[in-house]
């Protein structure tokens, strides 16, 4: 129970602390807005066009691959605790070798298809 309270306090009080310091800064700092101050920085000239553009779909492949491997790693964590103790024997290790080999074949396929090249 205590650990959950600590984490909750860290999140809530951390955000409160940040807001406190930001409001202190707001009290201390001058506020003189002008039209030019609000321009986004683009090496001194007025910004051309909007920056919120569409992205290449190539990044999507990275995201999918990331999700696949991230979930695989989540499976590896409980396995690592079990595999560390000697009582679990060789079978658990062979199982994971098979599992990781299948994923490595998948990675090799993605590599061959050029999905791992950043454009």
């Amino acid at each position, binding site marked *: 129970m205590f650990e959950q309270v600590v984490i909750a306090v860290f999140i809530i009080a951390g955000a409160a602390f940040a807001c406190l310091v930001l409001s202190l800064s707001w009290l201390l700092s001058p506020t003189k807005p002008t039209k030019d101050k609000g321009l986004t920085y683009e090496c001194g000239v007025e910004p051309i066009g909007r*920056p919120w553009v569409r992205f290449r779909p190539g*990044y999507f492949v990275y995201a999918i691959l990331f999700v696949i491997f991230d979930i695989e790693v989540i499976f590896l964590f409980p396995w690592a605790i079990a595999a*560390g*103790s000697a009582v679990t024997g060789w079978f658990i*290790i062979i199982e994971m070798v098979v599992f990781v080999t299948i994923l490595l074949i998948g*990675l090799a396929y993605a590599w061959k298809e050029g999905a791992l090249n950043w454009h």
Partner: protein
Amino acid sequence: MNVWLQALLWMLFVVTIMMVSGASIIYMLRKVLAAAHLRIGPNTLGPAGILQLVPDVIKLLTKEDRHPNFSDKGLYCLAPIIIFVPMLTAFAFIPFGPTMVAANVNMGVMMILAFLTLVPLGVFAAGWASHNKYALIGAVRSVGAAITFEIPLLLSVLPPIMLAGSMNLSEIVLAQANGFWFVIPALPSAVIFLICAQMETNQAPFDMTEAESELVAGFSTEYSAMRFGFIFLAEFAGNFVMAALAVTLFFGGWTLPGIDPHSMGIFAPMVLIIKSYIIIFLFMMVRGNFSRYRVDKMAALGWKRLIPFTLIWVLVFAIGLRAVQTLFGAGA
């Protein structure tokens, strides 16, 4: 004592550590990078320029806080807090001594990495909400870097977990105190962990997110005053978190070899902090001596080198560990 009050005291203690480590790392970075570049660094205010931090903080506090005209204002104001809070919470899981750990959870390793993963989310929010081309490119690169190095980072913490048989950071430290530092059997993991930590903290040679010569200041281009201060503080505090995590997992945490871990007393946090600063010094020397990677080379390094290597290394390590256990009995 009331649990909420106790938790709040822990929070204040951790905020103090975060501030002090952030300030000292900024000073150290200036001096170490200056020495690496054959410059002098700050030398005017106070002995060896150590008081330079005071006017820096005053300046950050009293500057005008403005936001760009077209920006997504709510998200823009929220982003520094999204970056700061998970970084602060990550401190809660680091054991500073036998009982000096704010949240001694069984899933410690996973929790600390989970909170560190939230930081790129705040970085992307900051870059997107700024409505600035440089900021957006920086933010996209930051997400790309995060998804590239997340997996080798997670895989490189597996060998210490196997050796300790636990994900609790305090138990990992005690397992090293009773045996040997985990860097000895798991050296490749320690090296990969440090490479990924270098990326996780946005430091050269992996600082594409804020590459000064290409992107002005990356995702934080449009930030000023204390909002920028929080982004800055979180970044340097992240340095300390990653170094302390590396020390905890691979270099014995708050213990020293040959000394009974329960007689460390007040020296335990000092040992952890000194070891962490040695690791931070290593980060800074790498930062001072290597030039920046290109974005596509960074992605290739992560996906084509580190991920296959760490996956195979984890299996090799598991097989080796089981072979040693079979040959020399379960105690090994």
